[in-house]
């Protein structure tokens, strides 16, 4: 069938793109590591001793970028379908605001080792900061979910607005905190808000665990694909076609919130990925969510890996926030898509 072939071709291209991105990302940085060594490392083969530490650091970074890029893209796809809104991004439901507030509170308190949250987080191999951010995003999503319901049904329009309010409220709170605290702490809050893929506080097992969790969550979202297709027709049309609209919406919301919360906790808020990658992928493999999810996951991973590689190359030796790159690449791409034939969502 034509769709299947188109999907297979698209996926093959994306997978190749992702592989190239990974090789490129491992080979660029302050020291040049040859492509050969990069490929060898990615395949798990032996590499010369002097490059080992650097390659190991880069691979962890590439892995994190892939996980975050994939998660944000999957969440973006799900939310755009769930809210029937092409401008939705994963942060729209308050997840980023809540995560930022959690992180800000943690940074202001100086990060004590004695709190249960921190202890739990560190036992799992994450930093207390990540734990606080994750808790914050979960709390915010919970609030959004509770406020956006009526008689047990989630109303997409209400949910959207509640999410915007939660973000605004969190933003105001963070502003207040940055204003009253000392320069160094407000500085660290601002820095956190820029996103950071170069985190060193993730243990290897935590990274692998995060990856596994992301894969599971993405798989569960994928299963919703057919139902999400129908949801885009409208609640009533979907219900008439046999979809349990309320439950599908709830599942999509919870899974997206978890994936986004995880990304924000690990790397801070990185924008544009969850908004642009779904659109770009849609123009390659079409709007069918059963194809869109796997494609977006691969494309999102590749995109963020490349953006991070670019961020590391522009000012070698300096940690440039990757959010700048995703915006600089993402915004023009988004505009270009909107103007092309395939992107006519609003006329």
């Amino acid at each position, binding site marked *: 069938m034509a769709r299947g072939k188109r999907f297979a071709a698209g996926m093959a291209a994306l997978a190749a793109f992702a592989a190239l991105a990974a090789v490129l990302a491992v080979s660029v940085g302050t020291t040049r590591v040859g492509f050969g060594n990069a490929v060898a490392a990615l395949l798990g083969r032996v590499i010369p001793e002097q490059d080992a530490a650097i390659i190991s650091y880069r691979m962890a970074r590439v892995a994190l970028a892939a996980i975050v890029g994939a998660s944000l893209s999957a969440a973006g796809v799900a939310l755009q379908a769930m809210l029937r809104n092409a401008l939705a991004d994963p942060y729209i439901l308050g997840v980023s605001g809540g995560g930022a507030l959690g992180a800000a509170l943690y940074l*202001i308190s100086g990060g004590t080792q004695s709190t249960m949250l921190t202890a739990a987080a560190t036992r799992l191999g994450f930093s207390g900061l990540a734990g606080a951010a994750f808790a914050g995003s979960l709390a915010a999503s919970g609030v959004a979910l509770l406020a956006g319901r009526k008689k047990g049904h989630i109303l997409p329009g209400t949910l959207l607005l509640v999410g915007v309010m939660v973000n605004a409220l969190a933003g105001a709170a963070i502003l207040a905190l940055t204003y009253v605290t000392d320069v160094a702490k407000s500085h660290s809050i601002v820095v956190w808000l820029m996103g950071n893929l170069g985190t060193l506080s993730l243990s290897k097992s935590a990274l692998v665990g995060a990856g596994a969790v992301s894969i599971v969550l993405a798989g569960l979202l994928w299963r919703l694909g057919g139902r999400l297709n129908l949801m885009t027709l409208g609640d009533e049309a979907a219900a008439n076609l046999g979809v349990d609209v309320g439950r599908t919406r709830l599942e999509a919301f919870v899974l997206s919130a978890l994936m986004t919360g995880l990304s924000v906790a690990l790397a801070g808020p990185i924008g544009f990925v969850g908004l642009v990658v779904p659109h770009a992928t849609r123009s390659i493999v079409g709007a069918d969510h059963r194809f869109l999810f796997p494609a977006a996951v691969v494309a999102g991973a590749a995109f963020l890996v490349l953006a991070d590689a670019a961020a590391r190359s522009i000012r070698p*030796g300096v*940690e440039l926030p990757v959010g700048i790159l995703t915006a600089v690449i993402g915004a023009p791409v988004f505009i270009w898509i909107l103007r092309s034939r395939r992107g006519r969502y609003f006329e």
Partner: protein
Amino acid sequence: MFLGEKPVAHGMTKRAGLTKASFRHAALLPGIIAMCCYASASEGVSTTDSLLAKQPLKDYRRIVAFSPAMTEIVYRLGAQERLVGVALFSDYPPEAKEKPTVGGILNIDSEKIISLRPDLIISPPGAIANEKLPTFGADILYLPDKTLADIETAFLRIGQIVGKESEGKALAGALKSAVESARKRNEERPKVKALVVIGYEPMWVAGGYGVVEEMLEAAGGENVAGGEKKDFYAIDFEKVLSQRPEVIVDLTLDAPATDERRNSVKAFWKRFSSIPAAATGRIKFIDSDLLTIPGPRLVEGLAELEKALGRQQGKKAGGDGAR
């Protein structure tokens, strides 16, 4: 294992002594801090050059020090009775905590300042300072605090303006000679590759410009993060891996640092055994105040740096100043 929790925030040290740096970073907060527009400089306010050119110098009795470093300088010069207001976080010497605080550069307490009726404000220069301070009607002494030369000048000028000229000269002289003798001492010896860390996640380090860099060099060190000519910046950890510093100077722990905290920092670095400093355990802790407050305690900071690099005064290189 992750990096141990520090009481000091990730990023920069807690002292507002890094005010110039914080201006730069304040410039990164567009729209985050809502700034009202104040009226432009009022008439009749004199600033630095004109102030010091007056003969005789005005006798200032109601002085506001707008950074913790400047508070320290005034106290060290013995002119604290003239001080009516100090910046937030001016906690050295301890008596300074008794003085009324007037906020920080990002959150100026205008009401407090007005109520104190200052006749002189001493402040590092900067866009926000230039805009807001003149509105209080006091004379303003702007003193840059980025380089050692700046700081020596600051000692001199403040000494002049509070009538402690000879004490000011002495302070400046002490700093200058401490740096020079350190430099002479370490001229002939091989440089020790060092990294000065002021924050983690992302890793903020002292760069190739400013007080820390100058003192590090004088102490016989080579700043592996010196490629970037900024006073502080976020370094790509890869660079640390490839530069292989022999000593890590960690400024992130508040004094007194507990053993627990030091051990977590050491454990963090131990994960990267390809870095010589990590493999040999040469992670040295210095109270950040001593190196980042551009004031009289820099001399102590220099001594600590030398110790950290294994360059005890008068001793040969290679001693492991276990700390």
